[in-house]
């Protein structure tokens, strides 16, 4: 098991390195003068040269790359051009908010997907499965930013039940903590609907197929022959096996949810990683864009790594295989 984790960790580190390299070289080698992307487009030649020198852009590419990489490994992504503060400070502020949103969305998404996947499996071939699948497909296909805007229109503007934007109400910091938590929770409802709930069918279909496959196995027949109630047959025997393929896509789903987070952060003005990226694009703030891109990639890699390890925990055969390797 340890060996398995170490191996996965090794390949994740390699990928992370490749990813950072990609971010650096794409930003440097894209068509156009890089210093224009660093906010010097309107300056005259002498000032441009000064900027180029100050940013270190007149040094050899390899040296710049090495310097950037060394900075990044120490958490130094340079300074923001638009906000005049270290990029790392901005990231440190944004990442927890994105993780709060995606973390809760992740749990909610999988809980709903498992419940509805099991339901779909148990109702296979019935009319209600078909109806639910079509409804789920429409929900899955809704453009997230449009859905967000609609929810704001209905629940914030028209009904006034839920806040339309932000993490917390203005002045919430002065409230006692239970009310503060409640306030954040109210701000979370609509974004969670968009990224956690609406696309649930995508994952639920995997759960359904996995459970159906497991239900056809001999061990399920054996469990039924032992007189287990149907609920135990499904949740104890079928679901554990049916979830194995779902765990392998769990990492991919983190990337999927981060995508959703970008959209929702923009629509709901949630000051996280996605919104920071979009703001930086409009401000042509390249150090920030590079920082958010690299960090989003790193988070996804971390998610994949966790999914791999989880798979090893969930399937004793994988554990065994890696022990046998030794």
């Amino acid at each position, binding site marked *: 098991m340890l060996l398995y984790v170490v191996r996965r960790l090794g390949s994740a580190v390699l990928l992370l390195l490749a990813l950072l390299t990609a971010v650096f070289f794409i930003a440097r080698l894209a068509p156009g003068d890089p210093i224009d992307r660093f906010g010097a487009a309107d300056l005259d030649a002498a000032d441009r040269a000064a900027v180029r020198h100050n940013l270190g852009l007149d040094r050899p590419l390899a040296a710049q790359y090495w310097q950037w990489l060394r900075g990044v490994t120490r958490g130094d992504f340079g300074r923001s051009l638009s906000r005049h503060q270290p990029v790392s400070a901005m990231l440190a502020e944004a990442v927890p908010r994105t993780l709060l949103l995606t973390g809760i969305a992740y749990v909610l998404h999988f809980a709903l997907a498992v419940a509805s996947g099991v339901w779909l499996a148990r109702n296979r071939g019935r009319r209600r499965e078909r109806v639910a699948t079509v409804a789920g497909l429409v929900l899955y296909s809704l453009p997230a930013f449009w859905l967000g805007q609609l929810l704001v229109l209905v629940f914030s503007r028209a009904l006034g039940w839920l806040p339309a934007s932000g993490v917390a109400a203005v002045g919430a910091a002065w409230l006692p903590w239970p009310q503060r938590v409640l306030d954040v929770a109210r701000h979370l409802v609509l974004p969670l609907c968009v990224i956690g709930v609406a696309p649930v069918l995508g994952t639920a279909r995997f759960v359904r197929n996995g459970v159906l496959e497991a239900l056809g*196995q*001999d*061990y399920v*027949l*054996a*469990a*039924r*022959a*032992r*007189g*287990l*109630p*149907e609920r*135990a047959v499904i949740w*104890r*025997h079928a679901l*554990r*096996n049916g979830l*194995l393929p779902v765990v392998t896509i769990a990492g991919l789903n983190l990337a999927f949810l981060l995508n959703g987070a970008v959209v929702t952060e923009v629509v709901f003005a949630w000051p996280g990683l996605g919104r920071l990226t979009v703001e930086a694009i409009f401000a042509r703030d390249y150090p920030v864009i590079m920082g958010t891109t690299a960090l989003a990639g790193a988070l996804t890699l971390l998610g994949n790594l966790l999914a791999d390890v989880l798979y090893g925990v*969930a*399937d*004793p*055969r994988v554990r*065994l295989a890696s022990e046998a390797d030794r």
Partner: protein
Amino acid sequence: MSAAPLLAVEDLAVAFKGDGAPVQAVRGVSFALPRAGTLALVGESGGGKSVLALALLGLLPATATVSGRVLWEGTDLVALPERDRQRWRGCKLGLVLQDPLAALNPVLTVGDQVAEGLRYHRGLGRRAAREAAVSLLAEVRLPDAAARARDYPHRLSGGMRQRALLAAALACGPELLIADEPTASLDVTVQAEVLDLMAELVRARGMALLFVTHNLALVPRVAERAAVMFAGRLVEMGPARAVIEAPAHPFTRALLAALPERWPLHGRLPAADAPGPDPRRPPPGCPYVCRCPHARPACADESALGLALADDRRVACLPEVAGPLARGEVPA
């Protein structure tokens, strides 16, 4: 007989819905099994044996229609609601399946699976269930039972898995054990070991046994009586020795002829020279006519079939064919 038998199957039929006419997998099967009685159900694969076994447990898929009666000490199981049948399974009926690797859940430990019946039927706690699992595994002579209980099925050998499966089936002390080709996937030596163990446990616990197999040679090892099945019907039934030593139905003879004599445990599937009858439109009378060397026009007449060779020995064949065959003569 004063008391009702443990299990009495009366005119049981199973049909599967599908495209076109239903597939009639089991037709008009009747037999009785006394308490602690042992019966082997023999036939070729696809002959309806396993379907019959699952019908007794009530575990057929929703596409199956079951008619007739399965009387358990007088209670008709077919008519019972699913909730009650579920209580019957595991408690009164135990099942051992053919492929022990497939029949054990790869993500649960062996001990978990052996004990889970106890947890649901008897409400045993986690610790009590674990202890029960270990003693059950010891009863099936799994070496180092306590350690094996914590293992996942993949760490066990084929024979060990089959023993574990047997332990799980025995957990709640069933009165009838149904074993569906329990040793077909094992090596010959392991096969003999597991069979002897099963026969011994059945005797020791006073259980009844329904042993489903395609291998007639295994039958005397575990069962007193044998019932031979072809195309969903019972064609011959009687004491195991008598059926093997003096087979009266042409199909039973064919099954026996397919066994290599020197290696009685190493039976092969009887070669199907010709396909069986169409299960959607079974012919009237004996289903074996299409392959039978002694077939004659009267075989299509249901009422002409049937011969009682002894009190407990019946053959579903024309008396003028089955009689001479049972005496070892060639029918005219």
